[in-house]
């Protein structure tokens, strides 16, 4: 008997479904699947709350080691933007499982398209703040991408999938992966590259009618510097990148972009448009009074 492909896929999923009998978790639904494991939404009967449970796909030692490493990494990083780990253990079938807080919200790429540019930059600032926190503790994510970033109802960001952090095995996602080969001690500039690619996506995900192309030029320069093929040319870490983006948002000159005189004049005119308008109004009144008294 030949089964349809959809039925075979469903059977495979059921086969993958781990047995959580004997634990306090009831599996509800599969919410994600990656190279290392499957993520389920589950209900914690003891605490009466939903959680996320990540289970290795197969009973391989390398996957188990990586999942335990991810658990220890998450446990060492207590930050509002990093999903909290609750428990790590082993199932009767030998697979390792990791219980985490359930990140509710929208993926960054789905969320950002509706926002004006200033709000996208605010979200990016929160992302960089979270990554900078990890960098300050010597942790490099190594797989930053919009799919691993959730944005909550109130704009709070949560960075997921720290499975590659702390390791040196090859990994990452095309388009966000730094071009240099993996090293035993990856440094923060690997994440800076990914953050630059994410910033580029945030700029290009949808049009921004409230801002002109010439205004964005420094932001493009920031992206170019962050995603430079030469790691030495990039920002040293997420904090430095965030500082330059913040300078842009505050109307200041950014380190990644050498302004022409015209660009500088335009930027200052935008930043100080109200006092300039007031002074011009004063001068116009003086000129009118001059003609009037004449």
């Amino acid at each position, binding site marked *: 008997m030949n089964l349809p492909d959809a039925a075979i896929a469903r059977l495979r999923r059921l086969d993958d479904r781990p047995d959580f009998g004997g634990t306090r978790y009831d599996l509800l639904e599969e919410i994600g699947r990656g190279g290392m494991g499957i993520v389920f939404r589950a209900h914690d009967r003891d605490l009466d709350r939903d959680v996320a449970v990540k289970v290795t796909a197969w009973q391989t030692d390398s996957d188990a080691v990586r999942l335990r490493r991810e658990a220890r990494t998450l446990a060492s990083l207590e930050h509002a933007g990093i999903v909290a780990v609750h428990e790590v253990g082993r199932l009767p079938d030998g697979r390792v499982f990791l219980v985490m807080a359930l990140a509710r919200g929208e993926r960054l790429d789905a969320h950002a398209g509706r926002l004006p540019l200033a709000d996208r930059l605010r979200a990016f600032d929160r992302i960089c703040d979270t990554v900078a926190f990890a960098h300050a503790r010597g942790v490099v994510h190594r797989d930053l991408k919009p799919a691993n970033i959730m944005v909550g109802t109130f704009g709070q960001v949560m960075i997921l999938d720290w499975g590659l952090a702390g390791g040196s095995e090859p990994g990452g996602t095309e388009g966000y992966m730094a071009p240099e080969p993996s090293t035993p001690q990856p440094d923060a500039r690997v994440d800076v590259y990914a953050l630059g690619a994410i910033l580029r996506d945030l700029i290009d995900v949808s049009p921004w009618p409230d801002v002109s192309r010439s205004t964005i030029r420094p932001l493009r320069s920031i992206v170019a510097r962050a995603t430079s093929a030469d790691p030495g040319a990039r920002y040293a870490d997420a904090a430095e990148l965030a500082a330059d983006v913040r300078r842009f*948002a505050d109307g200041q000159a950014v380190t990644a972009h050498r302004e022409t005189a015209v660009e500088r004049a335009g930027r200052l005119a935008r930043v100080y448009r109200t006092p300039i308008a007031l002074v011009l109004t004063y001068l116009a009144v003086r000129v009118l009074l001059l003609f009037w008294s004449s």
Partner: protein
Amino acid sequence: MSKPMLGLVLGGVLGVLDGLSALVSAPNDPAVKAGIVGIVFGSTVKGLITGVLIGWFAKKTQSLGLAIAFGLTVGLALAYLVCVMQKLGGMPPYYWQIMLPGGILGVIVGYATFNFRRPAPALSR
């Protein structure tokens, strides 16, 4: 530098410039030319008082609109006082030429002192 101090400095500088601009807006008036020193002095004092009052108010308020409105009111009021003093001194009071620019300068000082040392918008923490 505090906001009242900024108001004092800005008000004084704008007062000098405003006083000198009388030579431009009333170039053919011999009374203006003859009394320019007094005009500049008076305009400077007016600017200093206006500036420190507005700077003090800008320190108290959290509303840009109120700071600007206060600046406009004080600028117009002190300019009116100058016109009254001119009239009492036997000179023709230049109401429009003094009050209108005076009011605008009050708005400028109100705006500047309110925004002085305020956190920047957008991505400020």
